């Protein structure tokens, strides 16, 4: 079971990243949960300074941008 987390305070890019991650996980046929982390101290706890960020199983994969679908697939696979 993959645990995908999207860190961000709810800006447009955060929503977009969540959508892309969801689509990528579905395309890969993964078993996964997806969760939005909006609490600032939690976001800071990951050491992320630039939102949105993508976290997979507790590891920060991308911060500050929304990668293309194909790139997200590689990151969560």
């Amino acid at each position, binding site marked *: 079971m993959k645990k995908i987390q999207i860190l*961000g*305070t709810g*800006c447009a*890019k955060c929503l977009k990243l969540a959508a892309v991650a969801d689509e990528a996980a579905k395309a890969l046929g993964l078993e996964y949960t997806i969760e939005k982390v909006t609490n*600032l*101290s939690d*976001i*800071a*706890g*990951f*050491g*992320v*300074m*630039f*939102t949105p*960020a993508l976290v997979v199983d507790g590891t*920060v994969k991308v*911060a*500050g*941008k929304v990668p293309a679908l194909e790139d997200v697939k590689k990151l969560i696979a």
Partner: protein
Amino acid sequence: MKTSFFQRRLPRLVVATLVLVAWWLVYRNLAGLAGWLTYSVVGLSSGSPLGAAVEFFIFEAPKVLLLLVLVVYGVGIVRTFFTPERTRALLQGRRESAGNVLAALLGIVTPFCSCSAVPLFIGFVTTGVPLGVTFSFLISAPMVNEVALVLLFGLFGWKVAVLYLGTGLFIAIIAGWVLGRLKLERYVEEWVYATKTGNAMQEEALDWPARLRLGGEAVRDIVGRVWLYVLLGIAVGAGIHGYVPENFMASIMGKGAWWSVPLAVVLGVPMYSNAAGIIPVVQALLGKGAALGTVLAFMMSVIGLSLPEAIILRKVLKPQLIVIFFGIVAGGILIVGYLFNLVL
């Protein structure tokens, strides 16, 4: 057989050169083209208000958009070398004065959006970047940005763009330094310093094709966001250019009116993210007799002091600190406004 690096890159280099040459040719000939289109093709009479407005728009709109695309692309590539993590590493444990200068400079090139001002603030102050140095960064990053500089360069010329760059940095450095001297750590919300900051991200190594691609993404992202404001701003500016009488603004925003600078700052605070649209309007006003210092103060206030940013920062700063922060930056802007009205 393996092709050499140069052979593989040659077609792209040729294309890039051709694009740059085409860009230059269009850019150089816009003035003539705009005049020809307005007076010969559309057939407006020269000297009429409508003719002046249309010519202004046909000339300025493509010019500013061309400049924006080129500069945002270049800055987008430069920014791939400056991640917030690297900027933080450069600022950690810096002594104040030098740290303020460095932070203000890094504010220009580090990728920043006001929606991540808060995580960035936490990431900085919890890992040994002094509070005042963090403020220098937070003032400079939104205020001295490439979109504002391009618009200033395109519409006012390089002197005003350099003035803006210099005074913007000056305000960021001085205001950050003063805020640091005041020892305001107690006005940061307690939980901020209690946050345990993780050490995120292994840095990804980027090659040049990736950097160029990120430059392209920056163009799509930033120009995609501001082009409409730019066009609207230039359209309003064009209207002012054609229809508002000469020296109309002299009484309201001219040098003679002492209250014009503070008024410009106060009016600027609630306006936000329309900087791209406001600069062309302001440029047209300047042509009608407004004073440059007042105009600069207005622009800095629009771009550097914004209510949404204050609301976002409220999550980590107590109200007293937000008031002090805004007060000091506004004070710096006032000084700049009066100074330029006096000198120029």
